[in-house]
């Protein structure tokens, strides 16, 4: 069969869009048609994955050195600003669309089981399909505006899905928080777009990246401003310091949503953006340093918080924030392939972890539902020893834990190691990077520790759920464990994607991405270290990971835990970590309260009520009334007054005539 032309690329995002339309209509008209919804929702994703696969295969066959751009129609023809609705496919986008549609399809399948009893089933799949559509637009966009449409769209779907059970205040608040915090990041993205347009007169990736090395002074103010503002958008979307606060709250949404949006895809949009704009970041040492620095700091910071969280999803949320930090260290150092590699492997094992926790929560809910208790089904203090009841889930999650800790030969080992190696290499030229490397190493230690802690408290030791609930705990149905198993396989072998030359591998991903990252690398050559140093680093990383796991086993005592409702409150440093370093409270005091006060006291009471309503609206009415009253005074009905006016008019006319 002849290969279809790549101009049909639009089919890939169109499929989930169709799914959204159908499921959305069903949600409004016939929400109980679960079978149709499932078939459409999952089917469009599977088809999209197939289409993506075909597209990528065709791309591989063609070997282009530049992105293939397909312009579909003129979207914004406004004088100097000419923006087309255009999609592009290159090696970087190829990686993303495979991850999005592939992992997305698996999560859709999982959702069929997880959300089965939810009355909002059709709405859920509608939103999920819409999200995939927007995410594909984001990664396939050939210019900044199309990408921004996707950027905003995924933010919208994130809001809709976090607040999916909006009848409870806390869920709706979490959705709002996510959207509002993202908006701050979006402002950064927009300002960067304005600067880019002002400088280049175009917003097409092709044009901008081609002209960038000539048009921008390396290390100059403009390129630094552009990169910093772009990164502000990334801190919002990808939950880095200072805008990461929405991600832990986003766990209020259904767990498959957390897996898809807040682990595998949406939050990686920031990493993709930096990789896509690699040329710009290569031209700004300060910008790259900020990216890597904030990434490293976030990685460490979030890891410390995860040490003391009791909600299983919160642990995973902070873990995601931390791992995203790693990715930013990667792309900030110029090691785009390493960053993207970690993105892919992280998608596998983090989705697996979230879906696994979903299975656990599902079982806990069932247990509590059966006995009519209202305990927290997500608190690890209520779990324990679940490996006896859910062996498959436990085993698969252990695979993911080892991967995230960085134990060879699991996927996470290769990717994390490559990032740390790149940072260390950069440090030989820019000593600041030693700090980043160090933070990353400590974060790796903590990651291994808290993930082992999660596994210990959840699956091992005595069971704390309760006598009567215990008999209702069981493994998840195959529709849920199937995707888990697939992800487990991917986690096991995912490392093969980019085995570095050091180990005799072919660094497939790095070579695959070369056409895209080549330009940036020419501007900012990647540094290498001696093989011996590399082996030392690798050994060090593995040692650190093993130390973390071993330490957790030794120091933590699951037997000493009590169920959540009986647990004593934390004290001291533990309390500080558990309370997330009081960052939310800090933001509340510094930003939220003053803004709310300003809005209420100044903007509402003074500007809106007094100035706009009082002065402008009512004032205009009063002025009209006054002028009308004045006019009415002229109409006295007395001839004498009229004669006076008449004579005044005559004077004016004579004056005009005499002139």
């Amino acid at each position, binding site marked *: 069969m002849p290969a279809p032309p790549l101009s049909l690329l639009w089919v890939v995002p169109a499929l989930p869009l169709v799914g959204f339309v159908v499921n959305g209509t069903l949600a409004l008209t016939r929400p109980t048609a679960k079978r149709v919804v499932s078939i459409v929702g999952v089917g469009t994703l599977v088809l999209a994955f197939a289409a993506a696969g075909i597209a990528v295969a065709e791309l591989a066959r063609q070997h282009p050195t530049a992105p293939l751009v397909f312009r579909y129609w003129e979207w914004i023809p406004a004088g100097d600003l000419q923006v087309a609705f255009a999609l592009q496919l290159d090696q970087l986008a190829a990686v993303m669309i495979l991850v999005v549609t592939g992992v997305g399809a698996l999560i859709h399948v999982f959702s069929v089981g997880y959300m089965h009893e939810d009355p909002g089933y059709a709405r859920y799949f509608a939103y999920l399909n819409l999200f995939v559509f927007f995410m594909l637009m984001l990664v396939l966009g050939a210019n900044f505006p199309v990408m921004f449409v996707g950027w905003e769209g995924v933010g919208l779907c994130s809001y809709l899905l976090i607040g999916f059970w909006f009848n409870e205040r806390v869920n709706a608040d979490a959705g709002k928080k996510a959207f509002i915090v993202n908006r701050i990041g979006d402002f950064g993205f927009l300002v960067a777009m304005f600067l880019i347009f002002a400088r280049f007169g175009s917003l097409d990736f092709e044009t901008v990246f081609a002209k960038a090395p000539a048009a921008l002074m390396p290390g100059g103010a403009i390129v630094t401003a552009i990169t910093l503002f772009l990164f502000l958008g990334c801190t919002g979307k990808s939950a880095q310091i200072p805008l990461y606060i929405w991600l832990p709250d986003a766990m209020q949404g259904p767990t498959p949503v957390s897996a898809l949006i807040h682990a595998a895809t949406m939050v990686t949009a920031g990493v993709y953006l930096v990789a896509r704009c690699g040329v710009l970041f290569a031209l700004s040492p300060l910008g790259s340093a900020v990216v890597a620095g904030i990434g490293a700091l976030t990685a460490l910071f979030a890891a410390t918080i995860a040490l003391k969280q009791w909600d299983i999803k919160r642990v995973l949320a902070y873990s995601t924030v931390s791992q995203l930090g790693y990715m930013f260290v990667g792309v900030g150092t110029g090691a785009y392939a390493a960053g993207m590699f970690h993105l892919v492997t992280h998608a596998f094992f983090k989705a697996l972890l979230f879906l696994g926790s979903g299975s656990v929560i599902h079982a806990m809910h069932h247990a509590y539902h059966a006995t009519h208790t209202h305990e927290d089904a997500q608190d690890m203090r209520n779990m324990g020893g679940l490996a006896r009841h859910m062996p498959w889930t436990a085993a698969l999650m252990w695979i993911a834990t080892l991967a995230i800790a960085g134990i060879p030969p699991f996927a996470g080992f290769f990717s994390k190691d490559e990032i740390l190696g790149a940072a260390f290499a950069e440090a030989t030229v820019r000593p600041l990077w030693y700090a980043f490397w160090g933070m990353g190493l400590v974060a790796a230690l903590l990651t291994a520790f808290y993930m082992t802690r999660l596994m210990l408290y959840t699956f091992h030791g005595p069971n704390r759920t309760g006598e009567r609930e215990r008999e209702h705990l069981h493994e998840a149905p195959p529709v849920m464990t199937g995707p888990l198993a697939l992800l487990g396989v991917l986690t096991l072998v995912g490392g093969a994607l980019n085995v570095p030359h050091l180990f005799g591998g072919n660094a497939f991903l790095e070579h695959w991405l070369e056409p895209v990252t080549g330009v940036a690398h020419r501007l900012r050559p990647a540094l290498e270290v001696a093989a011996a140093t590399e082996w030392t680093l690798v050994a060090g990383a593995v040692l650190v990971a093993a130390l973390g796991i071993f330490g957790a086993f030794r120091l933590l005592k699951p037997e000493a835990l009590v169920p959540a409702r009986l647990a004593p409150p934390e004290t001291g440093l533990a309390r500080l970590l558990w309370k997330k370093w009081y960052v939310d409270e800090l933001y509340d005091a510094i930003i939220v309260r003053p803004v709310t006060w300003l809005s209420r006291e100044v903007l509402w009471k003074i500007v809106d009520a007094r100035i706009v309503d009082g002065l402008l609206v009512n004032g205009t009415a009063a002025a009209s009334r006054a002028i009308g009253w004045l006019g009415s005074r002229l109409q006295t009905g007395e001839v*004498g007054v009229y004669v*006076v006016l008449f*004579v*005044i008019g*005559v*004077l004016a006319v*004579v*004056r005009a005539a*005499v002139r």
Partner: protein
Amino acid sequence: MIEGLFWLFGGTAIVAAFLCITGRSPVASALWLVLALFALAGIYVLLDAQFIAVLQVLVYAGAIMVLFLFVIMLLNAGRPGVATDMKGGAGRVTAALLGLGLVFELLAIRGWMPADQLRLPAGAIAELSREHGAVRLVAEPLFTGYLVPFEITSLLLLAAVVGAVVLAKRKL
């Protein structure tokens, strides 16, 4: 000498007019106006318009002003002891201001003299009136060139008579 007479008559007209508009009772106003009209008739004589001067005295001062006096007395408007019908302070100021404004504007126009081609030689009208008589000076164009307006004026006067009778009737 003609100049002196002119200023005499002109001054009288202006003073009389002023006293007319500021007179306390309507009868006083009417009588001052009569004096002003007489003065104007004098000026007309000086301007070689003798027929017009006579008409002024006969028609204006003699008929129209008499009619005014009749009506004033018919309406008892000239009773002594009635408060003056002049407006109060603000009205006086307004009237004074507007009047002065108008005077200045009109005096500005006064500087526009007719073009020399249009002017007749000096004394032409006087010559004509001496030759043919002042009456014929006016009557000849009136009955030849301006015949149509003349006839229309007669219709106008007819309408005015009918109208005055109808309006003043007690019962139609």
